[in-house]
């Protein structure tokens, strides 16, 4: 498995290197040799395993500064920076706990591992390369993930064609509850607050509960430090398109004398004006974001406790030209081919606009009940405060047309247990209570009614390693959901219908290590999703969609079964790395909007769309490959395709991602004067015209194929006690005018034109080490 973790960076090491790093790995407490300890230099992908006497040896090293990782079962792994000028002997001391802790560590090391499911991650280095974008655009670097956009400022992640309430976002271990039912509702979180964001590309309800039909996005928290000493990071960002930028800062530390106690504060902001398309300004698409978090926690190998509060605030403008009132307006926008309203660039945000504030409070506790069993308890409180402002008469533009307060409490208790060497896993119970309130005073009939939702569930997942190469996993979950609605019908009568849903899910997985450098994962899992209140009770005109949307209170839960086959392999002595996923799924009761005639209103006749259930059959493939061409050059490719059929109507499903293919050429060199880890790349992305569309559902034909080009360069150097990294990136290099099928504003405007992003990052303490570790 270690082979698979070799970064591409290792492909570029200078010649004529013959230094040797050797020494001994011993236990900090008793000075005993730690045999089988691994000493590894991640940058080079080189390492050695300590002998019975604890001796290790790594040969063929070049002079330079390296981050060395020392790990051993049952020990905290150690990272140390070493400057090599000549062959050196270094002894490492590891804090080694009791022998019986070994197995526990094995469980702890991968608390959420999906044995059979493909899980792909975006780490901090990737985040840096995609700086200046939201979480959805960031995740689109993972093959099989695309973006459902509403103009340049709103993006939602799409996994294998599914998005919104069909993708669960787990933020800091808590399921994110922030009004994901609307396609113009972007996830309310700051991607920079995470160390790593993982995408589970399979049905994952057993692990995460309802909604994970398309998969799950896991925003993994940065672990709090345990040792004294401050670390920190400062980032700055300048963006050409939008003429703005952002910044973020992070500071953390431990407390002297209390090993295990750590704290962190973090804050970030973003300020952008109107985006520019290739030929015109996208008026009123500015955005502002402010977020901050503070956390404190204590952790040792027996118990842990942490407290986190984070607040995220966003204000964004919605393209002025997309504000329309009738189907005539929409038809006019489509025919004219460009926005009817453009104004010179401005930072101002006017109606239509939205403001969102998301609060999260999380309390976590963890205790080892015995040597091999651990109980984790997790409580989260979230409040999502959303206002949407429309262009209205008589000064009402300053009054929100939609004003929602969504408060959610979640609690979870998980027992990680060890039954035997061949059976271990976790079992847990979870509860959620949620209240959605329309804050009165809008003067507009609420789009979704007030409701109260309660759900309770229990799950179990067991892992069964069989031999060295094969690991099996099986799991199940049951969950009951109760939704109480408070709504006023068209006569102003209060109605309080109640809905109950009971669902269950299973998961089966197998992971098979074919060889040291190839692994296969096979998964068969199910997921479920009770209908959202918007699907049950929507009633009214959706202005920007120029359609009347009607809910259906008789809808039942969506249930899906998904099979995935994922292969990862490193071939030809590390020259070629490939990763491919095949998936097929069936969703019973798939809810979508289906045309149901027209209705005459004072704004003209509108098409009526009714939430309807069908059975959907989906399948597809995504793949990525990286090939080392020479010491400094590498080529990488990624692509994906999704097919989705509506079984009842026997036609294609609406709004599924078009096929895409991306190619990139990468140049890397470890050093160049004071600068190191220099990296430059050129990339081409082709997104093909979507030809698999249902007949008569769309207002305009899908946009044609487009090609985008990008260039990037970055380098690092030491500055004072820390590390400075500067990056420059140009997206849509040739200012191509294009529209994307998954952009809801494609009826009104082209997407963003050229963007040039300058990013600067300064890190010290363990963050500098981390970046050194991955830079290479």
């Amino acid at each position, binding site marked *: 498995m270690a082979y698979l973790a070799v970064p591409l960076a290792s492909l570029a090491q200078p010649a004529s290197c013959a230094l040797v790093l050797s020494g001994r790995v011993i236990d900090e407490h008793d000075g005993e040799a730690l045999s089988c300890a691994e000493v590894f230099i991640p940058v080079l992908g080189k390492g050695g395993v300590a002998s019975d006497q604890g001796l290790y040896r790594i040969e063929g090293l070049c002079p330079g500064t390296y981050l060395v990782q020392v790990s051993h079962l049952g020990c905290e792994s150690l990272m140390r920076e070493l400057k090599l000028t000549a062959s050196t002997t270094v002894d490492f001391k590891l804090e080694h706990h009791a022998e019986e802790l070994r197995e526990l560590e094995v469980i702890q090391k991968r608390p959420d591992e999906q044995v059979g499911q493909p899980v792909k991650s975006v780490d901090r280095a990737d985040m840096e390369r995609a700086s200046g974008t939201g979480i959805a655009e960031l995740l689109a670097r993972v093959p099989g993930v695309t973006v459902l956009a509403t103009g340049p400022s709103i993006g939602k992640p799409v996994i294998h064609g599914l998005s919104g309430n069909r993708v669960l976002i787990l933020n800091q271990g808590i399921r994110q509850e922030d009004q994901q039912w609307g396609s113009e509702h972007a996830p309310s979180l700051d991607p920079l607050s995470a160390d790593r964001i993982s995408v589970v590309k399979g049905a994952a309800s057993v692990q995460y509960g309802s909604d994970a039909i398309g998969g799950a996005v896991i925003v993994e928290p940065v672990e709090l430090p345990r040792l004294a000493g401050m670390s920190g990071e400062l980032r700055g960002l300048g963006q050409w398109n939008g003429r703005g930028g952002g910044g973020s800062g992070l500071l953390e530390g431990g407390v002297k004398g*209390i090993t*295990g*106690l750590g704290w962190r504060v973090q804050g970030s902001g973003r300020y952008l004006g109107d985006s520019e398309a290739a030929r015109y300004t996208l008026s009123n698409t500015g955005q502002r974001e402010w977020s901050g978090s503070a956390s*404190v926690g*204590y952790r*040792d190998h*027996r*118990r842990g*406790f942490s*407290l986190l*509060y984070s607040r995220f605030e966003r204000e964004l403008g919605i393209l002025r*030209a997309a*504000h*329309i*009132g*009738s189907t*005539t*307006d929409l038809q006019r926008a489509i025919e004219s081919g460009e926005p*009817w*309203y453009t104004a010179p660039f401005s930072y101002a945000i006017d109606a239509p606009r939205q403001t969102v504030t998301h*609060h999260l*409070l999380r*309390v976590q*506790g963890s205790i080892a009940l015995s040597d091999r069993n651990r109980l984790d308890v997790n409580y989260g*409180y979230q*409040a999502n405060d959303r206002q949407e402002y429309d*262009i*209205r*008469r*008589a000064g*009402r533009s300053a009054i929100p047309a939609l004003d929602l*307060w969504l*408060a959610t409490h979640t609690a979870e208790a998980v027992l990680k247990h060890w039954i035997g060497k061949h059976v271990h896993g976790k079992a847990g119970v979870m509860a959620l209570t949620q209240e959605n*309130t*329309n*804050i*009165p*005073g*809008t*003067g*507009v*009939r*609420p789009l979704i009614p007030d409701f109260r939702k309660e759900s309770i569930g229990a799950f179990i997942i067991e892992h069964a390693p069989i031999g060295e190469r094969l690991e099996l996993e099986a799991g199940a979950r049951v969950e009951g959901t109760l939704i109480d609605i408070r709504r*006023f019908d*068209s006569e*102003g009568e209060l109605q309080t219908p109640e809905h109950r849903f009971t669902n269950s899910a299973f998961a089966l997985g197998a992971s098979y290590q074919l060889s040291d450098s190839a692994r296969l994962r096979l998964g068969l899992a199910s997921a479920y999703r009770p209908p959202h209140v918007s699907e049950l009770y929507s*009633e*009214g*005109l959706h*202005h920007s969609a120029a359609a*009347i949307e009607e809910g259906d209170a008789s809808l039942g839960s969506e249930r899906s079964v998904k099979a995935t086959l994922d292969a990862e392999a490193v071939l030809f002595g590390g020259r070629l790395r490939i990763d491919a996923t095949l998936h097929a799924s069936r969703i019973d009761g798939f809810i979508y909007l289906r045309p149901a005639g027209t*209705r*005459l*209103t*004072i*704004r*003209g006749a*509108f098409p009526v769309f009714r939430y309807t259930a069908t059975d959907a059959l989906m399948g597809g493939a995504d793949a990525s490959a990286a090939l080392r061409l020479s010491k400094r050059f590498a080529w990488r490719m990624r692509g994906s395709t999704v097919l989705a059929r509506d079984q009842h109507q026997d036609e294609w499903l609406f709004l599924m991602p078009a096929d895409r293919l991306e190619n990139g050429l990468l140049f890397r060199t470890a050093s160049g004067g004071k600068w190191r880890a220099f990296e430059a790349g050129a990339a081409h992305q082709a997104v093909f015209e979507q030809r698999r569309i249902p007949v008569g559902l769309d207002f305009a034909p899908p946009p044609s194929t487009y090609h985008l080009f990008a260039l990037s360069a970055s380098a690092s150097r030491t500055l004072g006690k820390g590390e400075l990294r500067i990056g420059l990136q140009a997206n849509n290099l040739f200012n191509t005018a294009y529209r994307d099928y998954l952009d809801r504003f494609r009826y009104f405007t082209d997407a963003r034109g050229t963007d040039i992003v300058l990013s600067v990052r300064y890190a010290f303490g363990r963050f500098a080490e981390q970046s050194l570790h991955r830079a290479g």
Partner: protein
Amino acid sequence: MNLNFHNNQSRLTMTINSKLLTLSLLAVFALSACKKDKEEDDHDHGHGHDHNEEELITTVRASFTHSVTNDVVEFSWVDTDGDGGNAPVITGGDLQAGSTYAVSLLLLNESVSPADTVSNEVADEAAEHQFFFSTTGGSLTWGSYADADPNGLPLGLATVWSTAAAGSGNLTIILRHEPNKGAAGVSAGDITNAGGATDIEVAIPYTVL
């Protein structure tokens, strides 16, 4: 020795834990208090819920006044319960051939009692609104605007129309919110380049006798 160390540490953790717990509970209260305030505030406003649409336009009335006889013919398009529910009631009218009419428009929200006169709001924001007219079939022809906004550009609550030979057809009334009144042809009543969002688009049958 080792055991002692561990015990001390656990006691320390307990203290920290209980302090943090108190802190977190405080924070929960602070957050929920924030919501309470909002609710109480709303109750002060009286009506708890927005089940009536404030900005709804339910009714368009067009009064055609004959330039010579001063006879008034009323055309209307009424959907008292707004979108959905009952279908709109559309009332056409008979006009005299070879005549000129002064037309005034009245917009109402009759879903509330007393009814709101929406045309007053439109007149107050004249610079951000403009009516456009068209006809199909028959000989009714829209002539010109008879009112203007503070910038001297047309509004259209008052207009002048004429009829020729007998026949029948439909007249269409369109209200655009925030149109681009400066665009080519717009001030002459050509909707092509007007942009903006449509607030009203109704068709009413007429007959010229």
